[in-house]
């Protein structure tokens, strides 16, 4: 167990090191990426740019810059942004993380519950009306762009019907920290959760349905039926449990990636200032320290989420214990 943990840790460090080096090199290979003039301010005098260049260590060899950046990111934790002089990177990400985590975790619960329900119900009624309705709806959910859905939700809840009884309870856009107002936290996140979860409900529902239907071709389902188990028991206990494994694996990836910043569209539409928005802004502004930090943060979550998924899979499927 311990060696397993340590080996994962080692691999994570290697992965993160590789990613950071690649990010670093890509940055400096990008034309127009030299941050000195941008840090110095518009039309700064050459002397000013030189001073800034020296101040930020941009006149030193790349490997020294890399080492310094890592040192300031992980050891002294006082790395500051290139685009937003004086903004400390680590506290910024630490303060943005709860918003993203709240958004993604809530949406994840929603999409896992509804996605599983969709898949199971559709599989149970395959090729009949409930299946067709659910699959049509999930196809739509998958096809609709998140940004557009978010804007539509906002148009209805914040603009067109905001003053009606139906949506007058919807708080203004933005994130309310759980610690300061749990009820406000919940209300403010209801629509973001729905918006983010929609795509995944559709995706997971469709995948699970296909998985269950495929599982029904398995010999062990025939065994279960020949034992005299009811259709419901065969569906839930025997078919769904195996079919859910790929979903769990996918969930791990999706969750990790979203917590790492891929929920940016939902974050922006609903004014939730999370890590995704930070990453997006950093990329737009070619803000290397912030890019490095968010990329490392994202890769950390992807690795961690995968580790958790591996454990979950072993719990669900004992076959995986062998390896």
């Amino acid at each position: 167990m311990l060696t397993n943990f340590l080996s994962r840790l080692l691999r994570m460090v290697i992965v993160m090191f590789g990613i950071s080096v690649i990010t670093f090199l890509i940055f400096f290979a990008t034309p127009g990426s030299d941050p000195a003039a941008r840090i110095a301010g518009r039309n700064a005098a050459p002397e000013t740019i030189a001073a800034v260049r020296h101040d930020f260590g941009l006149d030193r060899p790349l490997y020294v810059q890399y080492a310094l950046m890592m040192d300031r990111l992980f050891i002294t934790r006082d790395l500051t942004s290139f685009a937003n002089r004086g903004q400390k990177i680590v506290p910024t990400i630490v303060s943005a993380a709860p918003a993203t985590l709240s958004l993604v975790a809530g949406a994840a619960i929603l999409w896992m519950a509804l996605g599983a329900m969709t898949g199971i119900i559709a599989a149970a009624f395959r090729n009949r009306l409930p299946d067709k309705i659910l699959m049509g709806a999930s196809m739509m959910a998958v096809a609709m762009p998140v940004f557009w859905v978010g804007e539509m939700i906002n148009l209805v809840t914040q603009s067109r019907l905001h003053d009606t009884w139906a949506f007058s309870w919807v708080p203004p856009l933005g994130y309310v920290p759980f610690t300061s107002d749990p009820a406000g936290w919940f209300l403010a996140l209801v629509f973001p959760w729905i918006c983010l979860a929609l795509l995944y409900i559709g995706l997971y529902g469709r995948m699970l349905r296909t998985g269950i239907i495929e599982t029904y071709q398995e010999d062990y389902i025939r065994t279960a039926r020949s034992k005299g188990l009811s259709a419901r028991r065969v569906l839930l206990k025997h078919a769904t449990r195996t079919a859910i494994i790929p979903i769990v694996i996918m969930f791990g990836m999706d969750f990790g990636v979203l917590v790492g910043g891929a929920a940016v569209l939902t974050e922006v539409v609903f004014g939730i200032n999370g890590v995704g928005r930070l990453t997006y802004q950093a990329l737009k502004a070619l803000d290397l320290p912030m890019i490095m930090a968010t990329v490392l943060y994202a890769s950390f979550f992807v690795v961690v989420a995968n580790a958790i998924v591996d454990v979950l899979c072993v719990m669900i499927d004992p076959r995986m214990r062998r390896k």
Partner: protein
Amino acid sequence: MDLRVTSRRGRRGRALARLAITAAMIPAVAPALAQAQEAHRGGTMQLMAVASGGTLDPQINYTAQFWQLYSATYDGLVAFKKADGPESNTVVPDLAADMPTVSADGKTYTFTLRKGVKFSNGDDVTPEDVVASLQRIFKVSSPTSGSFYNGIVGADDCLSSPADCTLEGGVIADADANTVTINLVEPDPEFLFKLSVPHASILPKGTAAKDMGNTPIPGTGAYMFTSYDANNSLTMERNPHFVEWSADAQPEGYADKIEYKFGGTEESAVNAVMNGQADWSFDPLPADRLAELSTNATDQLHVHAQSAWWYAPMNVNIPPFNDVRVRQALNYAVDRNALVSVFGGPALAQPVCQILPPDFPGHEDSCIYTQDPGDTWSAPDMDKARALVAESGTKGEKVNVVTEDNAASRGVGTYLQSVLTDLGYDATVQTVSGDIQFTYIQNTNNNVQISVTQWYMDYPAASNFLNVLFGCGSFHPGSDSSINIAGFCDEEIDARMKSAMTLGATDPEAANAEWAKIDYAVMEKAPAVPLFTPRRLDLVSERVGNFEYSSLFNWLIAKSWVQ
């Protein structure tokens, strides 16, 4: 005078909107500001923006977004008057009790400080604070340290070695007399403007000589920053040590508290303002909401012209724009009306044909490149344009238009591409991320032929456009910071600009007349295509009252009430 006077430049979305009518340095007679109407005092003002403006350090931050806030939180020795309209271009005494006494040679300014003014941390403002603040401009490598304040005696040493900056002989404090004397190397008619911008804010002398980032620095204004998280929000509350000393320089505010939230989209900000969840949003209004707002929220909309232009600088040093006929041809061919529609219609822009914006000091109506040359632009002259291109023999050459990656800039670029194609060029559009395009197009190493960009004034002086954008001193080949994007350097015109600046110190009127001629002379050489002047649209919530607009700081937040 080493006038590497350069300028602040707003980005689309952080537009610095200022309307300059006069460059007068006459101490304004403060109009009797209405007694603070007690009924309106109090409440919390809610502001929104898609993103924050970066560091909170007033000597470093160079965004219109936060300069607007600094107008109510920090003071310089002098300040632009906090007033609506053209009056806001006037410089008035602020922490100085009166306008300075200036020596006959124009090189020595002496300021007497007001008594009893305190920082928000309770300390008195002393001459030492002023010396420390002016030193700090160099110590923190303020963006304008090498362009605005390099004329102060001792500034050269400070620029080459910021950490040891003393401004020896340049800034002298006299604690007993409560005065500060500033010595310049050469006279500078724009020096008081430069002292009025937030980079010359007076801060406590103990302030660390580094970018303070998100940590608020105590100031002398009516409000002080109480919290700032660049990723979420900013709050301003009343400065407990503030006592109004001049309503012109630093008026007391109405709201008790100002909250600024960052995030969301322009679209959601409009909804929030319309729902009364916010009072104002910094970002430009989405074009698709304009029609609806202009009918539903007429009273909440405020339109103001800006001292700015959108233009397309053409690199005069590489083909095909190294041929003046090609540059002139494009100027003839561009349909400004079409561009105005691309940008969102006449509500948001006004066609232009010359460098200095309408109503700007030195502006005189004239248009060379139009159907019937005269005062104003009327219609493109394609025949003349085609003839010029034919003469130049450059037809069929490749031309690449570099734009930012936002819709407006891309739209303008695509339009220019179509015009160039019309003229027989093999034209393409290259889109570069908005945050790096500006430095990208400046660097001659990138061989940019023509680009789409904007310039917003720093302070109301003609040199801020002409000398900065087209002076030889602003051209630094191979540097990311070479604001003369066209690479235009005409010895004769450059000499005329230098003498016009000198003339401005003694005879502003005559100087402005000369600037108008220089504007014409530069346009004859056509280093850029003037496109249009953008206008600023502000949408405020129903409860906001007393909307006043300063050409330097946009909406004067402190002067509006929310109840």
